[in-house]
């Protein structure tokens, strides 16, 4: 497996706040924390089977970021492509009750939500650095 790029895949879930956070963490990784080496894979596109997302996950390591314990992202990657190199369940970081709150528009995020994004992103970076080193 090639390790000059790492795919980060959020569940993008609409069932809960954890899904909203997963979207934001992916953007943060891509734009702020690990730009350049990070590739975001769009999970709905991955599922649809277009756009080369599945092929990417065959060749490169991926990290799934799931909003809740349903782990839709991890399951979809492993079903359609390859085993993930690392995975995160946001409900384990911020607590299940919080993770299962209603999804939010980004304009309605509070400081608490942004802290959840930061904590999850830090955990993602740990896994990321473990894979890339």
């Amino acid at each position: 497996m090639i390790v000059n790029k790492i795919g980060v895949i959020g569940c993008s879930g609409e069932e809960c706040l954890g899904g909203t956070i997963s979207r934001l963490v992916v953007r943060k990784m891509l734009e702020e924390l690990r730009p350049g080496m990070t590739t975001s894979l769009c999970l709905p596109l991955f599922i649809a089977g277009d756009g080369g997302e599945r092929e990417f996950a065959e060749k490169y390591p991926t990290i799934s970021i799931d909003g809740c314990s349903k782990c839709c992202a991890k399951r979809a990657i492993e079903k359609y492509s390859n085993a993930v190199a690392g995975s995160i369940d946001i409900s384990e970081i911020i607590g299940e009750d919080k993770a299962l709150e209603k999804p939010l528009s980004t304009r309605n995020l509070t400081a608490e939500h942004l802290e959840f994004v930061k904590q999850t992103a830090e955990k993602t970076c740990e896994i990321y650095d473990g894979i890339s080193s």
Partner: protein
Amino acid sequence: MSETICVLPCNGLDKCAGDLSRRAALQLTQSEDVELICPVLLNQNKSRYEKALEAGDLTVIDGCNTRCASKLAGDLGLAIKDKVNVSEVAKALDIKLGVEIREDQETQAVVQAVLEKINSSVIDRAESEFVEPESIDYNTFSHGKFIFKVPTANYFFNENDCWVTVSGKLARIGVSDYVQQNLSDILYVDPPEIGDEFEQFDDLGSIESSKAVFEIISPVSGTVVAVNTGLNDAPELVNESPYEKGWLVEVRLSDFEEDQDLLHDCPAYFEFLQRKVAEVDV
């Protein structure tokens, strides 16, 4: 038509258009009548949304021309009632979305246009489908061995004992319980042609029984959009269910407000019919 909407956005993360599909969907869910369907969870566990999809019409919001949400719905055999493509809406507004996810006036304008398009489709559908009431209550009175029933509300009658009930710009027309009891066993219904235009009190076909032929006198003006084809094989439905399954003609109304001036509402027709039955030998 369903009263609820299930909205399935593509929820894409790698383009601005996908993000706007999500924003539009989240705004729609401010209404209690809208159920948000997560595309990823739908793919993993369709049964999670089965009840919602049975109860509501499915609206799909695709971000781009890859149409992931439409494909997902198609792969799962879901009937799509309405589709909106965010990129096409943006193009019509001459707004370039690109890859970067942003919240500015342009993206808000696109979200607003997507919402307006969906709302307008919902209204169009409401106006193009006759919505049957869930249940109808009746008042009854007896005369000799006969019992006559008249709905308590939402029906209007002319003095020829033909009724109309309205749903948006559409209406259904039929004959009253009094007519079907007078005619006895109905053998044949001769409906008008779809597309026929007619004025209030024009002839709208006829009903034939073993005893007589009854001319249907329209209580309203309009255009015929459908006839009850179920009566071809089962004209007896007019006897069994004169106000519901035995409806005759569906019409697009021309001017119901004006037509209504010459019609009886349910309580008035109930009194009218009581007088009529008392005077006429049934």
